[in-house]
């Protein structure tokens, strides 16, 4: 049996990825996380001196804190298994990536273990997040200078 034939056989026998079901679950899980985030933002706007724009910082921190607790108590991996990208794309997924790596590498000490590894998974999110923000900002600056859009 050659590689091509085997790849075809493997595709035929391996269970299919239920893309539609996964998408719906990701939508529901991700949407629920964002809904909770919206409530947190409303809480900051109602009870503290925040506007819609300035409430995002404390909201993000709060959501990160929630996800950190859920990761530590072993619940976030279950959310991730059900929600897929719905669990990993929101800021809570970023928190989970950092905290899970930190917990994992605690056995190697705080400097080389936790410090050296906690951004193992999240590092690429930071790198490419910052880079894409830079590119978007550059495009917008050019468009503003040309008078196409305004800040």
């Amino acid at each position, binding site marked *: *049996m*050659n*590689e091509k034939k*085997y*790849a075809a*056989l*493997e595709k035929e*026998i*391996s*269970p299919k*990825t239920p893309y539609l079901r*996964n998408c719906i679950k990701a939508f529901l899980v991700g949407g629920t996380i964002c809904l909770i985030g919206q409530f947190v933002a409303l809480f900051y706007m109602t009870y503290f001196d925040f506007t819609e724009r300035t409430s995002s910082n404390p909201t993000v921190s709060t959501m990160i804190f929630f996800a950190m607790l859920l*990761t*530590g108590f*072993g619940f*976030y*991996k*279950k*959310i*991730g*298994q059900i*929600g*897929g*990208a719905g*669990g*990993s794309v929101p800021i809570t*997924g970023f928190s*989970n*990536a950092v*905290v*899970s*790596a930190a*917990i*994992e*590498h605690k*056995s190697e000490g705080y400097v080389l273990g936790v410090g050296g590894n906690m951004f193992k*998974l999240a590092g690429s999110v930071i790198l490419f997040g910052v880079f894409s923000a830079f590119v978007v900002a550059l495009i917008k600056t050019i468009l503003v200078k040309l008078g196409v859009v305004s800040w």
Partner: protein
Amino acid sequence: MVARGLLTFKTNPSIASTGVTAGPLEKKSPFVSLFDKMYDEEQSGAGTNEQGHAKMMEDACMIALSKVDSVPEDADFLLIGDLVNQMTPSNFCAATVGIPYMGMFSACATSVSTLITAALLTDSGFSKIAIAGAGSQHNAVERQFRYPIEYGSQKPETSQWTVTAVGVAAVTPNKKGMPSIVCATIGSVVDLGMTDPLNMGAAMAPAAADTLQRHLDGHGTKITDYDCIMTGDLGKTGFELYKTLASNNGIDVTENFRDAGEEFYGEDPSFFAGASGAGCSSTVYFSEIYAKMLQGEYKRVLLIATGALLSPLSFQQGDTIPCIAHAVELTMK
């Protein structure tokens, strides 16, 4: 022509006893009543996953030795292996028990590669008691090959659950009334271009089918000669593929075909396609199969342990997953 990679043992060394230890999640296994020792905690009370892994191995060795009324000083060789980098759990276990030691690696096929080597040492008269076996610890293996344990990634249905379990066997010169090792086939590496580390069963299935074919042809036996032909850890997906490949080769796939990984956690969907890990085949072979042979239910079995010879580095660099399967034949007279 000398058949390559085939072994026939002249003195038929026996498996005089076995020792099986397993972690807390493995209590869900249908084979749990046959395990010698279970731990209530993943790290077996040690400080780290890796130390817990070593402790499980030590306990398994001591249990196997105690069943033949022996102490580590009586054993001539210790041949064990695991999946952690440089096999440190096996090394620490060997340091504690103090038996002359050779660490062996065939990934999840280590259960059979160690058993074959122990049989060779016994056959050649160098060994009175040789401990052979393999183990794995879920957390220690997952962190090395995949993601941190608490990371919320979505695992597909084809993925397998690395077991926390160790199985070892005490191999001695032939003893009446004990399962004995008759012949074996050393596997060749088979690589059909699979690259998905979350579908290892599919990568390993061709290696298992290849070794089965070579064993049958080389030793001149038929499927019907065996009461059971058990593969190591192909899991639900890989097992289906392996049976398809075998029947494509003209082999009559019967009820006698079993897979340790497929059966290890029963039908529980939280373990996806079933179990994997070096401890999967070793524990099922040295509990379920061994017990059935002692009871006389199985008179002749063929055990084909399968291993995926990948590293996290190799698959990240885009390499395929080379796989191996070693076979050993046991009889009970």
